[in-house]
């Protein structure tokens, strides 16, 4: 896809929100490089711009200025439709609030993501079976979200996020709503996805213990990155 180069390249990224007449500078010149297969933890105080960075890298909202390249695509020149395609093919999200569709079963939640990516085939898919095994939700697939525990919901959300083999998985406080046992399960699963399938993962967390699951820790403060990790291959 992008032969050995960085999978995320962010340079001097700024994001300004306008609320009425007040301007909020959420990102004030962020620089970040991530290589394929990395698991990066992002920490920082509330309001430091972590989620905003994810939203831009994941194509949910445009940047105000700066360079953003994701999997070889230049996001700064991308239209709304272009970002939609990015979300369906290249990046996927896991949220603190799980964000499963409440009307659908776990299996159908996963099927929606496949459908949107245009992969509707229903035949055997050993790789996906492997993921389900790894996540340990194979038995809970025919339940609706309200019949699942928080840990189970988050595991379904992870399955939904990786089902289309995205280049990047963005997890915004994935354990923020979970107790410590479930947190450890979910973090362990993310680690295995990273190690066994080579999934590139960026994870925001407030918990230093959780952050330690990443290869590197990036900390943010006031819309800037204050400690850049060393390059992976070093």
């Amino acid at each position, binding site marked *: 896809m992008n032969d050995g180069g960085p999978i995320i390249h962010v340079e001097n990224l700024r994001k300004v929100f306008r609320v009425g007449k007040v301007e909020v500078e959420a990102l004030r010149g962020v620089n970040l490089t991530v290589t394929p297969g990395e698991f990066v933890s992002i920490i920082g105080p509330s309001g430091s711009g972590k989620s905003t960075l994810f*939203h831009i890298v*994941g194509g*949910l*909202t445009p940047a105000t200025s700066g360079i953003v390249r994701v999997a070889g695509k230049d996001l700064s020149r991308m239209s709304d*439709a272009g970002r*939609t*395609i*990015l*979300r*369906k*093919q290249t990046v*996927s*999200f896991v*949220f603190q609030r799980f*964000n*499963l*569709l*409440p*009307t*659908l079963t776990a299996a*159908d939640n996963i*099927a*929606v*993501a496949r*459908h*949107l*990516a245009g992969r*509707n085939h229903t035949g055997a898919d050993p790789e996906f079976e492997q993921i389900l095994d790894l996540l340990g939700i194979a038995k809970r697939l025919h339940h609706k979200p309200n019949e699942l525990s928080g840990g189970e919901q988050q595991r379904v959300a992870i399955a*939904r996020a990786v089902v289309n083999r995205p280049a990047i998985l963005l997890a915004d406080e994935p354990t923020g709503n979970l107790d410590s046992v479930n947190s450890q399960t979910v973090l362990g699963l993310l680690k295995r996805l990273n190690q066994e399938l080579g999934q590139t993962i960026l994870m925001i967390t407030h918990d230093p213990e959780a952050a330690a699951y990443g290869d590197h820790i990036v900390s943010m403060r006031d819309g800037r990155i204050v400690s850049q990790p060393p390059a992976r291959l070093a």
Partner: protein
Amino acid sequence: MIQKLVWENVRHRPLRTLLSALLIAIPVTLVLTLVGLSRGMLEDHRRRTQGVGADVLVRPKGASFMSGTTSAPIPEAMIAFLEKQPHVKLATGIVVQPLSGPFSTAAGIDLEKFTRMNGGFRFLSGGPFQQKDDVIVDQYFAQEQKVRAGDTITLMNRQWTVRGIVEPGVLNRVFMDLRHLQDLTGNTGKLGQIYLKLDAPENTDTVIASLKTLLEDYPIWSMKELATLYTMDNVPALRSFINVMIGIAMVIGFAVVCLSMYMAVLQRTREVGILKSLGASRAFILGMILREAVLLAAVGTVLGIGLTFAGNWLLATLAPSSFPPSTVPDWWPMALLISLGGAVLGALYPGMRAASQDPIEALAYE
């Protein structure tokens, strides 16, 4: 997959679904019932006209085929004149007098001649006139007015005795003695219309042709031809009335769906945000909302058709004589089209709003 999303959305909130469908069903029922009633009344009219057993009808000058004849401008001498014409076996005149209700009239008949023309009433109870102030009514009228043979009834501000109750389907629902009704209404010696029976129905055209030269300006109809005229398209007022009702139904359907889908979109803001975060395009979201509206409209139409049957049953029980009901399956596709049209138009605005929602704000929505 999109079907499943829509279907589960609809199932997930059964009360909202049911209410929306019910609200869509109401205008459908309205249109179908009105069309059914109009057609039922015309059909009933046609049947009763045929029930007279005549071959030819002579109307007063300037009358149209359906005008309610309240005056009686044909001189009675016409009967004798018509009976002298070749092939004419029998001629009998009637007068028609409006009663209180908007659709109800009484016919004054010469019972003896009328009996010869139609082969006689089939009495369910009672029998023919015995005195001047007797009426004969049909079964529907008796049922609706709750009268039996021998009861008295007030019509035209007078007391009448119900002498006989007959099977429906002949000319009218209420019959009085011709001469008595003529006298009561100041039409002594005058008739509203005249029915002719011929020696053989094949001679109808010949007779009409010769009568037309003799009686200029009198509309003369063959009863066969008359029967084919009882359709909605021949009654322009009815046609435009129904068109107006369809318009109103569409506006109601539009408003209902618009409101209902607007609520649905609001309720589902987060779900739309989730779908967008998964890469759903605007077209996908819009398509989902429109499909849901179409589903609601389809369910509403079926419900509306069901309600029409219930309404018909109610009318048939409460007022069989004024409102002969008729179901109109050929209008069902039209009803579906009306509600689908209203639904799609009504869902367009909420759907576009949902499609262009900001995904981050949508995900933050409680």
